[in-house]
């Protein structure tokens, strides 16, 4: 047996054979993957770009204002919703008058607190109009709650009807500002 053949016999064990096959397999997969990456066309995402117009960049002052208004907006929205649904569930007799009273009084506290917090903000000139609009909305919610609370004094449900247009107008206003500031707040469903 020559020296070269003896050396080959040393390497040709079953273990080295298996390792070799695995190595070749991995090399094949790698070659396939590299080839595929190099030849695959881009995803159709780029073939059909979104039609959404890019949002103009915000100035630091605008961004800071929106961030500060955001938690206030959340508190206001939840109070409006609780008051709105409270009235519906009261009319369907799923909520007692006392429970509705609690809800409206709590909402009134939130609205007053929100007004104070919003007044403490300093909007940049570019957002002054939105700031005023949001304040006007919060005042409408307060007026609406004040009107609705009369129900608990004289027992007349008509106060809810009288309170309604103001809360509706307020909801339109915060939706307008909210939609502009936080367009992703409500996704399509």
């Amino acid at each position: 047996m020559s020296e070269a053949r003896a050396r080959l016999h040393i390497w040709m064990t079953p273990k080295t054979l298996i390792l070799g096959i695995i190595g070749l397999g991995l090399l094949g997969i790698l070659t396939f993957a590299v080839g595929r990456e190099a030849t695959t066309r881009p995803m159709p995402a780029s073939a059909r770009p979104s039609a959404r117009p890019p949002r103009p960049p915000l100035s630091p002052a605008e961004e800071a204002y929106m961030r500060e208004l955001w938690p206030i907006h959340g508190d206001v929205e939840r109070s409006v919703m609780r008051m709105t649904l409270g009235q519906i569930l009261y009319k369907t007799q799923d909520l007692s008058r006392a429970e509705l009273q609690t809800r409206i009084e709590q909402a009134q506290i939130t609205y007053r607190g929100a007004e104070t917090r919003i007044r403490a903000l300093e909007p940049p000139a570019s957002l002054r109009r939105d700031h005023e609009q949001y304040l006007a909305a919060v005042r409408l919610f307060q007026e609406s709650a004040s009107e609705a609370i009369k129900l608990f004094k004289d027992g007349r449900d008509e106060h809810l009807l009288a309170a309604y247009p103001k809360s509706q107008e307020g909801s339109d206003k915060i939706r307008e500002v909210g939609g502009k500031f936080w367009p992703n707040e409500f996704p399509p469903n």
Partner: protein
Amino acid sequence: MNRRWLHVWMMLGLLAVIGGLARADVLQAAQNKRPPQVLPSGFESTDSLLRDVERAERSPRYSAWIVESSRFMNVPHRAFQPDVGDPPFVDLPVNVGILKGPDGNLTLYDTGWKQLAYIFDWNTSCCWKGIRDQLHAIGLDPDKVTQIVLGHGHWDHAGQLSEFPEAIVYIQKEELKQIDFFLNYPVDFNSGHIRAVNTVDPLTGAQVGPPQQACARTPVCGYPPQTVQEILGKVLHGKAIIIDGRHEVAPGLVIHPAFRGHTYGSQLLQVNTPRGQLVFGSDTYSSWTGIRDWLVANIQQTDTIQQFLAYEKCYVLASRLNSFNNCVSAHEPTSYTAAYPLTSNWWNIPGGNCSRAAELILANGEPTHVPGNPDRTAPEACVSTVPPHSISP
């Protein structure tokens, strides 16, 4: 004598015990027929649905159309139907059902929406037109709308209610109770992912935890205060009927609950027509091909088993004629094409900003509303404009 009375009392006692056991058995059996975790008012057996078919077939017939309130553009297909990715992007109509009975009055199933800033400025939608204009343009009188059935209360389906101040709105109590329940849901262990409003990062849109209070795809997102206010307006003016489960709106028009088929208080509408029972499903029936092929759709807020059970309701109600072909979908991408046969008789609404209408079926001698020379310009060739707008419900 005493012994005789004793016997009588013993017999009566025995009968009472047997009766009690039998009643418990009956109740237990009825309970067992309902899937677990299903509200009694949300459950309908196949037999009761078939009885509704029989009753409806003896009832007046309705003509039916759909119109497209707006169209979501370039929606990633898998975001809509996880099991379907081809083509990778789809356009989704927001369909509204219109029904005309023998008395000439109209019933709407869903009302679309009017959030124009959202539709045109912040989303990738197109082709919006106000519902009253659309009705006029297809030859129907919007003042004849007397009833509105809301398939669910999401903002893209329950808007524009104030356009019909005299119409009675039908909505499930369960739909309203679920929003109320989740409004102040504690966030200690869910990082703000379970909330009714306000749950995305205000600037990046990413879904994050408190105090950012996010609302992207939580179980009850999709109800801006504005939309719920409109429902309150209907309630306060005595123009809403809050229902709990099955409800017959009129002979031939039956609401069937589909609780959690999309939202907690989703509801279907069975309509008797010359082509059998049509079943409108709003987002519970987001995709017609999904119903046909038993694939889930628009599931982010959906219990998929309940969605399948709601699909089955259509199969039962439409079992005598046309089967799944009579299921009417809210967002089926192939709407207004031959691929969705029920909607194949379509046209672009004149002056409708590229929104489309389809005539599903005619009854009671109603003449066709399809124009003599209908505009069937393909969507990609139709140029839609952005109307002047501020935000409205």
